[in-house]
């Protein structure tokens, strides 16, 4: 009896812990037509305060009897909420999300093709590329964020430079010159920062340098990764040198680039942070911030990310859901409204003809970036490659691992996933 009770107690304790993460069972929703009746569409918007009220009002006016119910999701938990709603069979009709989730979700068939609802001539090439999977347009780029170089021009000028660095060599020289230290030699203003905490940032930052060194991530049919070649090693070593040789930064010192830039703690960084917060908090300081293409070695390039909008394949109202997605991202009202909310660059080209775009200082600074824009390689397992890479890179930068050996091991791990 005692034995049974002890086994039962142990089971209860273990189950209590284990079952916490187990999601509910699935139930596939039925597809239903909604003609002739009042319809409510569910729109889940990622990012508090990102609801496109004007675009929704315009959509509801154009579609009498259709009501849009909006739910705003936090950035740090939106993936779980969307996935669980899909698994539970009560998914929304339209979702907005970060571009990094597009490939894995598109690959699993989460989205509805919307090619028929879009005039592709009205879209930037990079915007269309971001939302295309297997030759189908499954998402609209609501707004683009470039991973560009943010520089404090006042600090560069004080160090005797009249322009932001354009090449790797210039970056090395300028980063050292603008790094400020106190009497003890401790850094008080970071010259150039290298992210070392967030996996996305670690891999993306390295990828900027890898790409501009002329590197290629995959072979043509994506059956093998090539990032452990000379360009990958060179990019990894360069970033490691900013930490260990040039000592322009201290790993983990910077948490929020715009705020730290505002607080004089950082002079240069490659970031995709929308600089809206910086502009709102300290517009006078923004006078001293310049946004330029990342420094390059062989090829000029700037990585793009951003906010996507998709209609879900599980929707009961595919036609209306597709139209709502277009209303959010593919109309001047929706695209400009989002640009105002997030200070991102509209991919819907007519929105770039508006006064808002033409007079916005930071958006104007990125004018012409499209020509050099590249999208991170599209692969459903990219998040896993990103984690493997970021582990290898932090091992090189922080633990002193040999760059070639660490990247070879990471490549072998990625190739095992591909195989």
């Amino acid at each position, binding site marked *: 009896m005692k034995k049974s009770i*002890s*086994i039962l*107690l*142990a*089971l*209860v*304790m*273990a*189950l*209590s*812990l*284990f*079952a*916490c*993460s*187990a*999601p*509910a*069972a*699935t139930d596939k929703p039925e597809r239903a037509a909604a003609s002739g009746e009042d319809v409510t569409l569910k729109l889940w918007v990622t990012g508090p305060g990102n609801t496109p009220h004007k675009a929704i009002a315009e959509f509801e006016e154009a579609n009498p009897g259709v009501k849009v119910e909006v739910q705003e999701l936090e950035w740090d938990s939106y*993936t*779980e909420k969307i*996935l*669980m709603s*899909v*698994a539970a069979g009560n998914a929304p009709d339209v979702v907005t999300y970060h571009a990094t989730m597009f490939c*894995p*979700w598109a690959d*699993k*068939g*989460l989205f509805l093709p919307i090619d028929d609802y879009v005039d592709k001539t009205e879209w930037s090439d990079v915007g269309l590329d971001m939302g295309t999977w297997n030759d189908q347009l499954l998402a609209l780029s609501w707004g683009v964020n470039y991973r560009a170089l943010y520089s404090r021009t006042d600090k560069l000028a004080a160090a005797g430079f009249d322009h932001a660095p354009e090449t790797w060599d210039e970056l090395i020289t300028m980063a050292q010159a603008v790094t400020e230290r106190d009497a*003890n030699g*401790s*850094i*008080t203003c*970071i010259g150039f920062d290298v992210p*070392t*905490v*967030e*996996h996305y940032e670690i891999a993306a930052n390295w990828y900027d340098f890898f790409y501009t060194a002329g590197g290629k991530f995959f072979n043509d049919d994506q059956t093998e990764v090539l990032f452990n070649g000379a360009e990958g090693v060179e990019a990894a070593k360069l970033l490691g040198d900013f930490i260990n040789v040039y000592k322009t930064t*201290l*790993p*983990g*010192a910077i*948490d929020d680039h715009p705020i730290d830039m505002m607080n004089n*703690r950082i002079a240069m960084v490659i970031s995709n942070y929308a600089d809206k917060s910086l502009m709102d908090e300290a517009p006078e300081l923004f006078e001293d911030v310049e946004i330029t293409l990342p420094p390059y070695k062989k090829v000029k390039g700037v990585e793009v990310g951003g906010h996507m909008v998709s209609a879900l394949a599980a929707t009961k109202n595919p036609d209306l859901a597709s139209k709502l997605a277009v209303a959010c991202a593919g109309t001047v009202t929706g695209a400009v409204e989002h640009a105002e909310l997030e200070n991102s660059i509209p991919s819907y080209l007519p929105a770039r003809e508006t006064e808002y775009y033409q007079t916005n200082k930071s958006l104007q600074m990125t004018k012409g970036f499209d020509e050099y824009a590249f999208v991170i390689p599209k692969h*459903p*397992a990219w*998040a*896993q490659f990103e*984690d493997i890479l*970021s*582990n*290898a890179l*932090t*091992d090189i930068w*922080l*633990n002193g*691992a040999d760059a070639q050996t660490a990247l070879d091991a990471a490549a072998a791990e990625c190739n095992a996933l591909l195989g």
Partner: protein
Amino acid sequence: MKKIQRPKSGYRHTVLLSETTSAYLFVAPAVLVFVLLRIVPAIWALYTSFTDYSMIAEGTWVGVENYAKLLSSSTFWKALSNTLVYTLSLSVLGTLIALLFAMLLNQKIRGLAFFRTAFYAPVVVSWVAVCMIWQYILNPAFGFLNYFISLMGLESQGWLQNATLAMPVIIAISVWKCLGYNIVIYLSALQGIPAYIDEAAMVDGAKGFFRFRRVTWQLLKPTTFFIFLITMLAGFEAFDQISLLTEGGPANATTTVVYEVYRNAFVYLKMGYACAMAIVLFIIILAVSMVMIRSQKSIVEY
């Protein structure tokens, strides 16, 4: 000996039956909730661990493939060893340090209410707030801790960026956070020890540490067992602090099994594989819990 038989009919039997029925009815809601929210998802997770379910697309049966991949994954073994190190360190330190402070707070000292509140405060603060505070303190360039050690002439450290330091730092923060709860339990146990037992030991000549070891410690054993067990179970669950402070880095130095379960389920869309990982963790927790409960008698009895 005359055998006592249960009455087969009549009033007593009716009373007994209704008492039993009432008892079942009273526990039914709790059992129902437990079965629905714990047992059913656990069984579902066990089934899912044999599929390639992704939460978006239907899963297909893959047999033991997920388990085979898991056992050959260096990341999983790293996560498991980190989890065990974290759990063991948290349990031992969280119990012993709490005992030490409970003993101190059980004395008649000035500002007792303040100290008790101060020690308990981290328990009620969310992990998000705790991690933000500690990130600020541990910031390698602008943090208070590096400033403090620089005053002593020591070199600045990347507390969470150094693969050797990151896990001990997370353990220290976790111990600090759980300390208040453990202290409260210990304090209530200490105040439950009748004064006459201590007085009798004093009369018998027992002093200082000897009296603590032979009297107080013996009487605190059931409480210690309880605190060690709940801290250990909390250790196996480590997720928030890992996700918020290091994302499992640098180079997987702080990743844990639960963090890997989350990454695989919600980021890599490998729910089947994540469930296999959870099942393995479940078996480990089950085994450890069984060993603990079976050894309870020999540990706790005095």
